[in-house]
Every structure is written in structure tokens, then in C-alpha cells.
């Protein structure tokens, strides 16, 4: 085969949402999973049909934040796989329902295979905003998506304010620019606005910050608590800015 037939179907599946956000970071543990899950929650309670896709195969953890047991996450089939409905407006796909949360170590080729299989079979029609959580750094999965789905995905870089982090964000941004991404969205996590000037200087679209909130640990695993937590107003602001910047 000259090309992977699944990429064509993947493109078709991902062309239906109005916005497909790919949440990335240069470093681990900066809050990608937390931010993508919260953005999806906010988007859905704001009344928009929303998708959340966990592409961190080695360390999937969105289900932990949502408090979902892998055994309850089941997909219906209808000309493909329909994501699991978490809330009225929130559709979700993670591999843990297949792996039962057993660890899997995927080499590059396997990770790409798993990625294209999922993107080809999971259907996101009727979803307006799709948020994709990814593993830290730029691995094969990121490169596959960023290259092949350039017209479709909008990268969101999540970073924490630390001098050490800035150098590695620079590198990540350089890679995205080289791939042809002009619009790069930016979220500062566990900070209080310090990175705004950095983002502006780098011509990134600064969409807001989320402060360090130590009580977050108590809300993990409960959608109800997350929706009531102090974090939410910050995430709402970011959500609105993301929509504002990517309208049309």
C-alpha cells in the first residue's frame, strides 16, 4: 500500500468537529491531562457537544480525573466506534476500556498503528469541540498527527512558569513552526500570568493561566467536585479565549 488507508478515514472523522485541539507540552507533568479534561468538561456544560480523546497510550489518565472505572467505559458500534457518553454533551474515548488499565509498552511503530486505528474507527460526528490529550514531549504519535492532520488540528501548548521549562518550550514551538503551524495556542498552568510576556514575544496565542491550587487533589475523580472547584473560573476564561481565537 502506498499510504496508510486509515489516515484518509481519520481525516474524514476529524473533519466533523469545528475545532480539534491537540494538547501538547515539552515537559511531563505540566498539567496537559488536567487541562484537557477540564476544558472538555467546561465546553460540555457550556452546552456544546464535546469530545475528549486520550491518546496517552502508555499513561492514560483522563479516566482517573473523570472518576471512571475502565469496566464501565463501553463503546457502541455504528459504522465505527461511538465514544462513551460521560455527560449529556461529553463524549469520551480512551484505550483503557480495551487494556483494562493493564500497562502496555508500545514501540514507535506500534504507537503509530494504535493511533491511526483509533483515529480511523472512532467517530466524532456531532461533536463541536474535540480535546486530545497526548503524552509529554514530541513522540511518534505527535509527529504523525501534526504532519498528517495539519489542516485540522490546533495545537495548545501547556507550560508551567519556570526558567528551566522555557528553553524546552522554545524547542517545541520551533518544531511546530517548522511544521507550518502559524497559530499556536498557549496555556500557562500552575502560574499567575508570568508567561504572558514570554508568549507574546514568541507570537504564541496566550489564552490564560491557571494558578497552583493545592485542593485540586480532592476533586480528582469527581466530576461534581471538579465543576465546583476554584479552578473552574480560570478554565472558563481559557475556554472562551480558545473559542474566540479559533472562530470561523
Amino acid at each position, binding site marked *: 500500500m502506498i499510504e496508510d*488507508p486509515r489516515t484518509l478515514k481519520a481525516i474524514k472523522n476529524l473533519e466533523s468537529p469545528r475545532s480539534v485541539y491537540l494538547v501538547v507540552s515539552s515537559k511531563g507533568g505540566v498539567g496537559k491531562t488536567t487541562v484537557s479534561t477540564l476544558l472538555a468538561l467546561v465546553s460540555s456544560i457550556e452546552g456544546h457537544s464535546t469530545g475528549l480523546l486520550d491518546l496517552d497510550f502508555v499513561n492514560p489518565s483522563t479516566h482517573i480525573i473523570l472518576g471512571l472505572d475502565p469496566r464501565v467505559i463501553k463503546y457502541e458500534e455504528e459504522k465505527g466506534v461511538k465514544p462513551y457518553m460521560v455527560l449529556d454533551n461529553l463524549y469520551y474515548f480512551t484505550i483503557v476500556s480495551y487494556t483494562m488499565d493493564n500497562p502496555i509498552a508500545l514501540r514507535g511503530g506500534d504507537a503509530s498503528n494504535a493511533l491511526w486505528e483509533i483515529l480511523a474507527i472512532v467517530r466524532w460526528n456531532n461533536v463541536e469541540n474535540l480535546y486530545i490529550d497526548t503524552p509529554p514531549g514530541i513522540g511518534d504519535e505527535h509527529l504523525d498527527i501534526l504532519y498528517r492532520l495539519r489542516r485540522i488540528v490546533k495545537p495548545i501548548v501547556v507550560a508551567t512558569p519556570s526558567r528551566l521549562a522555557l528553553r524546552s518550550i522554545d524547542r517545541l514551538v520551533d518544531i511546530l513552526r517548522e511544521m507550518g503551524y502559524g497559530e499556536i495556542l498557549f496555556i500557562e498552568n500552575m502560574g499567575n500570568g508570568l508567561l504572558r510576556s514570554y508568549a507574546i514575544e514568541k507570537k504564541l496565542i496566550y489564552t490564560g493561566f491557571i494558578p497552583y491550587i493545592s485542593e485540586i487533589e480532592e476533586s480528582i475523580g469527581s466530576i461534581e467536585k471538579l465543576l465546583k472547584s476554584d479552578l473552574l473560573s480560570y478554565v472558563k476564561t481559557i475556554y472562551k479565549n480558545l473559542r474566540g481565537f479559533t472562530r470561523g
Partner: protein
Amino acid sequence: MVHEWALAEAIVLYIENQGVKRGRRLVVKTGALQSIDREVLEFALRMLIKEHGLELGEIEIVEEEPLLKCRNCGYEWRLDPSSMSQDVRESIHFLPESIYAYYRCPRCGSIDFEIVKGRGISEIRVEDHD
């Protein structure tokens, strides 16, 4: 198990993208690991071929037996999906890489093995096309 529709659509999009419109026979090689329901796949292919305005004559679906190989000790083995428990088989049906969550090298116990063949769709060929 009808996610065969999604695979059928990928196949048809692929053929269309190659610029092929007519042919005498379509040959698709699938991997047995995915336990694809041939009847469903063939039915979906026929519907989609028509929908996309293609004429491809006969459809032949060839299933390739899975072959696994340990990266640690080099041992090669086969795996019969019909011997798997229903849940595991279904997970692997959707996502063949789920195999890494349930299997190890039967000789040395390593989790570092590879699917040499029989994973998924490995060939799409239209014979005598114009």
C-alpha cells in the same frame, strides 16, 4: 462487532485516492488478529463502492494468520484469536495493540514482542483496473 464499516470506508477512500474507478477484482488482506467479520466487511465494501460510484467487480478477502516474535529471545509464535476469552478477543478486534496488555512471550515471559504479521489490513489491490 461492526466497526468493519469504518475499515471498509478507509479501504474505499484509499482506492478512490489512488484514482482507481473500475476494476475486475478487489483483493483485501486482513489480519486474523482483528477477527474481522468477512461478511460484514464485504457487505460494507459493496455498499460503499456503490456509494462512491466505483465498479470493482469481485471482492476477495484474504485473512493472514498472526505471527508474533519476541524482541528479547527471538522466539516466534502464532496465536489463534478463537482461543481467546471473549473480552480479550473483542479488545484486540478493535485495537490489535491491546495484545500487549494481555500477552507475553511464551518462552521467556518478555512483554517486548512484535506483531510480525496478521495485525490488520496489510494489502488493498484492485486487479485489472483502468
